[in-house]
């Protein structure tokens, strides 16, 4: 039963943020929508059944549960559906009548304990300071003092207290874990703007707690309530089983007490103690199932595990590698194959969610040449990070590679390229890191927090260079660390001991350990301040000249790519909309979206220009219409743009012949209807 009370670390059980402006009912709706998973429905059904029995039980019981008869210890029969006890009492009647007392104590104690936990938890979290310290210590003390022994001693002092005494004892011993969870939640709320505003405007603390924050805590409180009901039902049964439940009334625990007192098991009278225990277990299961569903809502990763499960069958077929059509006429034209290191064709990645398939990467094709830096730019949510993960084949569920091919040419003279998607698992683990390494956006998250830098640098050597000695591995780790300008004394540091810039350098050093031919970098400098960002870009440029690796550099910062990249692919809504040489893209952006992106960032060294955003927001990837996805936001749109999707094809002269653009403005068929000077790529030339 431990898991029920520790769904996850309290800090991680963070609720989805609800806006304070929204009404209470709509907030609840947002928080509960999508919660009705099969397990939650099953839990609610079982719980509902027992609530109904608790209400009508005493009226439908066939006999008086306390009435003794001569029919002692009889097994289940038509007359006594669940048999009789040592004193000839009807087990079914005891069970039906006992449901009410058990459920009543459980729900009452659950409610009282929840109220206590909310009071202490929110007070502690919202008031802060010394009060928080003291209340936290109190909570933690009650957390480490085992609940049942304390409850037993307490109950022993009130032998005939009845249900009220049970409720008090159970709630007094069970509130602490919930108080801790609620405190963590309240702490995170305390820092939100509207609570700060309420405090500044001098609202009273009670009002602050009960009017402003409790509604936002409701989902967490509801979960804690269910956990506490479960705790109460088990504790009540335990106390009753020890004879501390007030033996005068019927409850499931009392039934078990009498069954045990009269050693029902030694007479084989299973019908006497199996039903009440089963009822306790079923109610407990129903509460746990509901909480399990709620956990999935609060922790999306658990949810995606479930979705991955339901989609496994359809995701099993390998993506077809023969999907790349017309390679000759496609993006590869003009390059000799020998020059191409990685060939991405018709690559499609989909997130299979409850609300439908989100096509995050759609039909993406490009080549990575030997020794080049290929930039991939786009707004957040355009699919560039999904693309990076999928090229490394480390996409997380529910993302699935739906189709396309990844062909790798390790050497210029290699006869046939290696298909990365269909290679065996063994080959793939050899290929990984040896040929292609990756640097993620946030280095804090990409370093394992519990092992030191040296270990994280050398573990790829251990698996890829099995014949190396430990000294050789450690020497190599120190060497790559020196390459990114970090002293060897940092080898034994843990990630949390390093600054953000250092962590990112370690992540880069890690990628270079095996001297791969491709390094994929996903926003490697975005989280850093400009000065550090500049240093790291300069360092990367040097390293690239020395080690000759190719880079796929993913960022939202087009101006950074203008400097650093040889060629740039611009992504919008999961597809590439423009692909060409960096200097050409800088001088002559061909796609209206590229033009917009270029004006989003000020250029410090270039001529002054107005910084503008792109009006509107990216489309919903679940339901893309058969039209240009940028059409609603585009200032150059033509009638044709709303009727079908433009293909990625060569731009018309004077665009360089290696420029690809997916826009009807560059479609020869549309040329006749265009006034001269409207086309972005030509306008700047005019």
């Amino acid at each position: 039963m431990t898991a029920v009370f520790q769904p996850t670390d309290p800090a991680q059980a963070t609720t989805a943020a609800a806006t304070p402006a929204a009404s209470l009912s709509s907030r609840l709706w947002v928080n509960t929508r999508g919660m009705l998973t099969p397990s939650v429905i099953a839990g609610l059904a079982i719980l509902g059944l027992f609530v109904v029995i608790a209400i009508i039980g005493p009226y439908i019981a066939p006999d008086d549960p306390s009435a003794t008869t001569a029919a002692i210890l009889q097994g289940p029969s038509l007359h006594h559906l669940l048999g009789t006890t040592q004193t000839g009492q009807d087990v079914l009647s005891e069970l039906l009548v006992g449901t009410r007392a058990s459920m009543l104590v459980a729900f009452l104690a659950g409610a009282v304990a929840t109220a206590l936990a909310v009071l202490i938890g929110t007070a502690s979290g919202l008031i802060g300071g010394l009060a928080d310290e003291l209340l936290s210590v109190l909570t933690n003390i009650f957390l480490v003092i085992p609940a049942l022994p304390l409850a037993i001693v307490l109950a022993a002092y009130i032998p005939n207290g009845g249900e009220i005494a049970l409720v008090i004892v159970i709630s007094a011993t069970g509130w602490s874990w919930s108080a801790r969870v609620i405190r963590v939640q309240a702490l995170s709320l305390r820092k939100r703007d509207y609570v700060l505003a309420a405090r500044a405007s001098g609202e009273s603390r009670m009002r602050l707690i009960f009017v402003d924050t409790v509604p936002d805590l409701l989902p967490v409180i509801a979960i804690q309530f269910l956990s506490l009901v479960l705790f109460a039902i088990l504790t009540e049964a335990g106390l009753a089983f020890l004879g501390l439940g007030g033996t005068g009334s019927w409850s499931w625990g009392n039934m078990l007490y009498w069954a045990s007192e009269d050693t029902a098991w030694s007479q084989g009278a299973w019908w006497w103690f199996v039903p009440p225990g089963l009822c306790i277990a079923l109610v407990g299961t129903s509460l746990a199932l509901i909480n399990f569903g709620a956990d999935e809502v609060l922790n999306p990763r658990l949810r995606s595990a479930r979705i991955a499960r339901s989609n496994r069958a359809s995701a099993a077929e390998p993506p077809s590698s023969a999907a790349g059509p017309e390679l000759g006429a496609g993006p590869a034209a003009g390059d000799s194959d020998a020059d191409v290191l990685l060939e991405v064709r018709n690559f499609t990645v989909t997130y299979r969610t409850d609300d439908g398939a989100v096509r995050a990467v759609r039909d993406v094709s490009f080549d990575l040449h030997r020794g080049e830096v290929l930039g991939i730019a786009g707004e957040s949510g355009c699919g560039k990070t999904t693309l990076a993960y999928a090229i490394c084949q480390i996409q997380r569920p529910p993302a699935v590679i739906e189709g396309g091919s990844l062909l790798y040419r390790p050497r210029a003279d290699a006869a046939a390229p290696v298909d990365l998607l269909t290679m065996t698992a063994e080959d793939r683990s050899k290929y990984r890191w040896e040929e292609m390494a990756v640097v993620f956006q946030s280095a804090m998250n990409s370093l394992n927090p519990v092992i030191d830098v040296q270990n994280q640098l050398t573990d790829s050597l251990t698996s890829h260079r099995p014949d190396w000695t430990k000294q050789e591995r450690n020497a190599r780790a120190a060497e790559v660390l020196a390459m990114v300008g970090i002293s060897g004394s940092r080898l034994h540091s843990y990630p949390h001991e390093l600054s953000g810039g250092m962590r990112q350098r370690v992540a880069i050093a890690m990628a270079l350990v095996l001297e791969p031919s491709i390094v994929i970098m996903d926003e490697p400098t975005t989280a850093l301040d400009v000065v550090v960002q500049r240093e790291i870009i300069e360092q990367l440029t040097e390293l690239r000249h020395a080690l000759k690796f190719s880079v796929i550099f993913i960022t939202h910062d087009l101006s950074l790519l203008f400097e650093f990249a040889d060629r740039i692919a611009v992504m919008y809504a999961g597809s590439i909309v423009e692909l060409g040489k960096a200097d050409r893209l800088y001088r002559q952006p061909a796609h209206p979206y590229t033009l917009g992106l270029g004006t989003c960032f000020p250029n410090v060294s270039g001529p002054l220009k107005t910084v503008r955003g792109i009006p509107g927001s990216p489309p919903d990837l679940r339901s893309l219409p058969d039209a240009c996805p940028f059409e609603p936001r585009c200032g150059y749109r033509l009638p044709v743009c709303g009727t079908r999707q433009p293909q990625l094809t060569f731009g018309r002269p004077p665009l360089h012949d290696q420029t690809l653009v997916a826009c009807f403005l560059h479609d020869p068929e549309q040329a006749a209807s265009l006034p001269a000077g409207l086309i972005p790529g030509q306008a700047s030339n005019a």
Partner: protein
Amino acid sequence: MRYYARRVGFYLLAAWAAITINFLLPRLMPGNPVEVLLARLKGHLSPQATNALEIQFGLAHHTSLVHEYVSYLNQLAHGQLGISITYFPTPVSTVIGEALPWTVFLVGFATIISFIVGTLLGIIVGWKRGSRLDVLLPATTFLSAVPYFWLALLAVLLFGYVLKWFPTSGGFGLTDTIGFNLPFIESAISHAVLPAVTIILASIAGWVLSMRNMMVTVLGEDYVALAEAKGLPRRRIIMTYGARNAILPNVANFALSLGFIVSGAILTEAVFAYPGIGYLLFEAVSNEDFPLAQAIFLVITIAVLVANLLADVVYGMLDPRARQGEA
């Protein structure tokens, strides 16, 4: 080092709180059943023993609360927990001293097995998330909600009464002499099998479920994706990158889990009449033996605190951030 000092300090505080609760309980509760007991025992008790019980249970009306508290602490410091009424006139400390090894052996063994096996199962089910293994989850959820003592009753019925595989009551055969001899050890082990299996079965589901959920959460972290991209062996990805991080909350929340296991073990011992302190507590409560019941509460609490301190030491070894005083 500061981390460990803080933890030790907290547990000392918690121990002091438990002792104080113990001191205050009889004074706060309506009526004082011990008074009745003392009257019944009049003449059987030495004046010192009477005095000690009066201090323990707040019956020495002629002294102040502070004075009683100091005397009470003084008694505790000298290991005087009073006289058991159930086992009159044996001192409580002797009674508990005889029962404690049984419980430490049974509960310690069962908890370690349950933690190790449950955590390993959780790692596997978490790694294979979305696979057929997930059908285990509803079954585990059910098992996690089953009362320990009900499972114990079922075990007694099935393996003791129907199949007659194991003894159903006590900690050793009546003919055995307690000590380091083979018949006694064999007998003790065969008596411990059913209670231990009950505790393991009832507690394992919690470890499986929480480890599985943490594993699924951690496997979504970038550093696990990176470990995969590095082409590391699956074993290293699962253990060093996944499980090493996923286990941290389980160790950090060990207190809570242990509290439930100990609570369940008390009831399990009561079913099996196992000669540990859980059964002793059951006897004490049945006989209104308040000195014994309260002393057992104190001993269980302190044992749980010590176990928690050990869990914190392990946590410190597992998480470099805690060691350096962040937590």
